């Protein structure tokens, strides 16, 4: 039903230099890539393991369903433990400190290497064939390895596009939204749309970004849309003092100063636009595909809403989101944990998980596949196309070990700039550069 423009998507993801040959894309189709050796993917296991995760109710349900299937197939139980999203990292950290870590936990691609570098994660080499990783998009498999050793499996990816309130658009006289990626709004057109929304006086803020806390890096969409970058190709030098970065910053701030962006939706506080959009207090939001099921559940029949492509400037760009699942060094039952991780990303289970949760698969053999998304499949098509605009340079930065520090730099600096009219672009560039340099140094 749906097709991802595979060539450009794979190009975006294939940045580790390994390159993607067409041959590598085709597996035997059974979803079982690894066979033989110690990496037994069949046979009975005993004991139990715990997977700690956050997630929307659809994600939790999908995890539980897969755990039940695992129990039936392999005999070992996996307990799915749910924590709030904004606390998962600190809770995992504390348990690691206390030697009480869960066997597996879900972690964003941007965080994996931070954990791996401190020795918190298990080397899964003995549970996986050397060729096991070939089944996945190279950049994302790369993110799950440290010095070539796998510490987990890539699970799904997601990206951002624009969700809008059709009633509000109608009331503001906006009759057309881009239906093709190539026809996405330019920044100027986008601002015109927001101005119309504001003029229509709908009692709502026209727009809000989804760059809160751990998602702060989603601001890089804007930066890369205008040709800017965070780091140079060596990933060692901060490249924010450029006309492009300046333009991106000033564009973002101008949305606030012109009253086009919801003023209370900033970076540091967990006020998420997808929570507000269903109350019709914001007419359009930049949002992730994984939120489609929960948005649909919250909005129900209150109003009609659609999704369109992100605005673009000199180019289009969207963020690399998504998560893998890792096994901890402290896991009491590494074998069960590793086998469950592999079970989670079989072709069949990944397909089910993505279809139920509105997320994008990361197996090469699914990139081209038609998925029957459970909720609003027509919207998912937009996200799939949008995913082809992930800039490869951004993907590379996003999986670097220093990325959590880079994200934190945004959390620490952006609010001040966006909410305070007298704060200058120079000072925020200085602040960001200093914070990011500190993060790079801490990794070195």
């Amino acid at each position, binding site marked *: 039903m749906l097709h991802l423009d595979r060539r450009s998507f794979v190009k975006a993801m294939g940045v580790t230099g390994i390159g993607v040959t067409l041959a590598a894309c085709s597996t035997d189709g059974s979803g079982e890539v690894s066979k033989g050796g110690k990496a037994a993917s069949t046979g009975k296991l005993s004991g139990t393991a715990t997977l700690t995760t956050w997630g929307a109710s659809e994600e939790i349900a999908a995890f539980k369903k897969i755990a039940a299937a695992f129990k039936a197939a392999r005999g070992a139980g996996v307990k799915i433990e749910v*924590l709030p999203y904004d606390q998962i990292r600190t809770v995992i950290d504390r348990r690691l400190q206390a030697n009480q870590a869960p066997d597996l936990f879900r972690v964003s691609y941007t965080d994996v290497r931070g954990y791996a570098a401190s020795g918190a994660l298990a080397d899964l080499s003995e549970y996986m064939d050397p060729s096991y990783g070939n089944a996945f998009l190279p950049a994302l498999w790369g993110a799950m390895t440290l010095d070539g050793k796998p510490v987990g499996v890539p699970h799904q990816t997601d990206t951002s596009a624009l969700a809008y309130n059709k009633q509000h658009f109608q009331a503001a006289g906006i009759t057309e939204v881009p239906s093709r990626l190539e026809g996405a709004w330019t920044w100027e057109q986008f601002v015109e749309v927001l101005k119309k929304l504001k003029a229509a006086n709908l009692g709502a803020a026209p727009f809000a970004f989804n760059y809160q806390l751990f998602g702060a890096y989603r601001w890089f969409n804007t930066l890369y849309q205008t040709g800017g970058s965070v780091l140079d190709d060596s990933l060692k030098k901060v490249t924010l003092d450029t006309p492009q970065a300046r333009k991106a910053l000033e564009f973002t701030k101008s949305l606030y100063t012109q009253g086009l962006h919801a003023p209370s939706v900033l970076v540091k506080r967990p006020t998420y636009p997808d929570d*507000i959009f269903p109350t019709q207090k914001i007419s359009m939001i930049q949002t992730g595909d994984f939120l489609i099921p929960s948005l649909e559940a919250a909005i129900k029949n209150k109003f009609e809403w659609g999704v369109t492509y992100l605005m673009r400037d000199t180019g289009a760009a969207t963020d690399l989101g998504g998560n893998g699942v890792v096994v901890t060094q402290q896991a009491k039952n590494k074998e069960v944990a590793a086998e469950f991780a592999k079970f989670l990303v079989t072709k069949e289970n990944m397909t089910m998980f993505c279809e139920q949760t509105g997320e994008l698969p990361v197996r090469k053999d699914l990139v081209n596949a038609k998925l029957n998304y459970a909720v609003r499949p027509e919207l998912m098509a937009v996200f799939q196309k949008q995913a082809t605009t992930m800039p490869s340079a951004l993907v590379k930065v996003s999986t670097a070990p220093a990325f959590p520090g880079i994200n934190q730099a945004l959390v620490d600096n952006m609010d001040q700039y966006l909410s305070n009219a007298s704060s200058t672009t120079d000072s925020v560039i200085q602040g960001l550069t200093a914070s990011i340099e500190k993060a790079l140094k801490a990794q070195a």
Partner: protein
Amino acid sequence: MTAQLMPPAAPENTVQPEGDGLPQSRRVRTGRVVLAVLGVVLLMFPIYWMLRTSVASVDELSTLPVRMWPRQWHWENYVAPWRQFPFARWLLNSVVIAVASVVLTVVINLSAGYAFAKLRFPFRNVLFLLILSTLMVPVQVIMIPQFQIVIDLGLLNNTWGVVLPRLAEAFGLFMARQFFMSFPDELLEAARVDGAGHLRTFWKIVLPLSKPLVAVLVIFTFMWRWNEFVWPLIVLTDSNSYTLPVGLQFLIGQFSTDFGPLLAMSFLSILPVLLVFAAFQGYFVEGVARTGIK
């Protein structure tokens, strides 16, 4: 050195329930009643609004302006979270932690307060000063090593990991010492001449006379431990072992803008402490005057 923190307690015979006892005109009195009512309205309104919002549905809350008085009562808010979250467990955890803390705090502070006030033992004054000097230390100063100690004792994600570290709080000890300082020495000496040992004297004579102190310690410790947030947030890492305030924080993330169930659960979480307060409010208000918490 922080002993100076407490003003001298009012001698009991000067307690004057009727204030300054001066005659006041009817107009002045009416004015004061009006002011008091205004004050109460201001202070109580947020609580009223919590109750009002707690019976509102999502639709009602997203339709502005929200009405001052609910049109329909959405009691579902009080029921649904119990099914979705281990709210009963959180309640139980809070009760266990509060009760254990109260019992231990009373025992420790009563006995140590008496020892520091009436018994001579080596380094007594130095030790007391040391303890007193921690009266003002915020928990955030010591939380990092304290956390490591809790881990080393194997108490992470454990009720005792929450209870034990907070026993080291100088307030209760200080209150107890002040209380026992005012005990007449003659009474204790008479008991000892009668052949009672120090421990027996403490048990037989001192404890029965300590009821006002115990009441105040119980009430305040219960309130503080029931409401405590940051330390349980650090120590409890499993949503099944949360206390109510930590669980509430969890719900904020889960319900986000669905304030109905969130405020319903907030109200339930403060209900026990409100009931305790309603039952013992005399001790809360007058007890402060008697025991020197002031």
